[in-house]
């Protein structure tokens, strides 16, 4: 009897419920160089990843987008809590995010921020949660709570914080520091990795590539193209003198008129 059952179980088309879905502990970041540098080979699932960046640099979405896109079918919601600007829907859709799954939350203060992050993380219905707490400081106890909630719900948590918090000790599983270089590349510094070495530096190419929009023809009734923003002073001076001419003959290039 036993051998019959065993033979059945050996068949390739028998599936056992006890095998269950595999719980992944990491998922790939989407950037090959970063995957190599990380000890786990990807973002840690079920834990917090901290990203420290200067106040006016925007690095997080470029970094996280491939991973979010890959993971989004895993659960119902993808949550962004208190982003500094509203994300641009057509751009997100063009990159492959499902807008129906994206949820934006704007809590009023730090307590509500923590509470909503914990609720989303531990519910198990969110594939990824991105939290921005650059304006409000978090203490060690809060960070532990967030990490615990992420572990309960097996959710990836990306926490974006200000650069000044680098000195603060944190229980997060992975800490990265991101900065934009002069040419637009993204320089990442691994500050802390659970189970691995820290100190690696990775450089990623700039996200936005220059694109050329060639104008096939210039419509006659439109104004001419503006000059470079650095020459704007000259532009304004000229336009005051020749505003009348400009209006009567709009297709005359302003630079061709004397001045």
């Amino acid at each position, binding site marked *: 009897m036993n051998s019959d059952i065993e033979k059945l179980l050996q068949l390739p088309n028998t599936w056992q419920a006890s095998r269950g*879905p595999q*719980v992944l502990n990491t998922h790939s970041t989407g950037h090959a160089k970063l995957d190599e540098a990380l000890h786990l080979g990807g973002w840690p699932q*079920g834990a917090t990843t901290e990203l420290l960046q200067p106040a006016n640099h*925007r*690095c997080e*979405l*470029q970094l996280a987008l491939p991973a979010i896109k890959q993971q989004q079918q*895993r*659960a*119902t*919601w993808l949550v962004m809590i208190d*982003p*500094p*600007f*509203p*994300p*641009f*829907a*057509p*751009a*997100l*859709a*063009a*990159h*492959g*995010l*499902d*807008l*129906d799954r*994206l*949820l*934006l*939350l*704007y809590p*009023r203060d730090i307590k*509500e921020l923590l509470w*909503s992050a914990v*609720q*989303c993380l531990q*519910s*198990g*219905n969110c594939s990824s949660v991105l939290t921005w707490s650059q304006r409000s400081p978090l203490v060690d106890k809060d960070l532990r709570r967030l990490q615990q909630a992420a572990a309960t*719900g*097996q*959710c990836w948590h990306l926490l974006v914080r200000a650069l000044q918090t680098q000195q603060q000790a944190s229980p997060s599983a992975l800490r990265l520091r991101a900065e*934009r270089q002069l040419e*637009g590349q993204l320089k990442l510094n691994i500050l802390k990795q659970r189970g691995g070495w820290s100190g690696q530096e990775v450089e990623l190419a*700039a*996200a*936005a590539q*220059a*694109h050329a*929009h060639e104008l096939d023809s210039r419509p006659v009734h*439109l*104004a001419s*193209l*503006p000059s470079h*923003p*650095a020459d*704007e002073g000259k532009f304004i001076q000229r336009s005051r003198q020749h505003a009348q001419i400009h209006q009567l003959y709009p297709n005359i290039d302003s630079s061709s008129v004397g001045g």
Partner: protein
Amino acid sequence: MSELSQSHSTPAPLWLALRFPRVALDLLNKRNPQQALVIIEGNRIFQTCDQAQRLGIQSGMSVQTALLLSQSDDETEALQTETSHTQVVHIETAQSPSSDQPKLLMRERCPQQEQRHMQQLAQWAYQFTPYVSHWQQSDSLLLELGSCLALFGGLTQLLDTIEQQLLVKQLHVQLSLAHTPKAAWLLGWQPHLIDWQQRWREEQTSANSIDASWFEQSVTQSLNNMMLLQLPEQAPFTQKRLQQWQNIGLKRFGELLSLPRASIAKRYGKSCLKQFEQITGSEIDLQTYISPRSDFFAERHYLSGLESVDMLEQPAQELLIEFQQFLRHQQLQTEGFSWRFFHFDRQDSRVEIELSSAHSQADIFFQLTRLQLHQHRIDSPIETIALHSDKLVRAKMQSQTLFSDCGQQSNTDAHLLIDTLATRLGKNRLYRLQSLSDHLPECRQGVSHEFKNTTTKVKELGINTADQNLPLWLLPNPTPLRRSQQQAMTLLSSAYRIDSHWWRQRQQRDYFLAHDPQGHHWIYFDHGQKRWFLHGHYG
């Protein structure tokens, strides 16, 4: 032939009369069960509870007598009360100096509250049988059970269930059975006549009909033994009529029935004869049955008032369980409900809870209620809690996958997360984005606060290459560039011109991808204002 007719015949009528003699008292919940409570109407006592009866207070007494009786106890010495006996206020208490609890609580009678309570009870009784009617305008319900025996597995089961649920509600009730509604109600007033019903009931365990002929015989016998003098003052017979019968020497109902029909009609009128015939079952007694309500309303009254949120949790839970039972019996689901609190100073406050998906689970309702109540401030003690919901929809059964692919803890519904967040943060701080079709970037996205139609199915998403050059972050209002910022920008692409909205305010913009030490940005030159603006960030 006779067998066929037997199987297709209607079941024998079996009426249950539920009389609630103390509905006005039972409405109110006392904090201390030892306190005496009386209901007053005008200047007279209307109903008394057991503790008050022990003090010697009877219904029909005047209020002053009752107060004197409550005060003249062995424990009291000198009277030092300050209550004035000249006017009856809403709640008047008589303090006994030995204890600090008021001895006697008085309450004005409120007929509307009683009526509402009777209507709620009728809706509760609807779960047992569709044939529920009120006995005129009083405190009794009539249920026709003959056709429902098969569903409940026998008369014993059915009556046990009814009694159990009434016990949980803590109501004084008198049950009586008969084959006509009027007979059932009349028999309830003289319970010693229907002792046999208790024993007979326990024998009726079969699911099919009862032994109708034997039952009818026994009921007729009890009716015949009914004492005329002990008939209630309410309908169907007036006091004058009862006095007339007593004068001609009739003591029992059976003697009345044995009078010839023609002379009853001649002496006491055709309507009196009709009453007799309806009681005995010779004529049909048509009742107006209630129809189920399309909304839910339940309330609880508290004499001493509820002051804090913790005290509200217990009654809230009971009301929500009642709500869930109502929804399940009627196969409905709700999309939202509201709590109303009525305070002692005639103020009322409301707490509304909306759900993003319709369901009928009381524990989720309670979670959301508790979340909302903690943010709610209670200014004065609450006398009545009411739960009301009219957003009821037909129940939709949803199918779920047997083995979920997500992490192990995804047992909460996706909508529960939305509801919890919306309850705490407020509905307008939580939204989804929508992609709209327009030329101007700021018009290309809209927000949506509705979460009702989320699908969790896997979707095939097309990648739109033309839009991949758009920035990921868009500023809500484009900011003009300062001179210093302009100096630092280097343009990386050629112009992308948008000329639109000529019908409102013409927008002529040339968009460029620009770069400065902080990253890549999306700037444009506005021909209308002749200025450079920053509109978005990349990354």
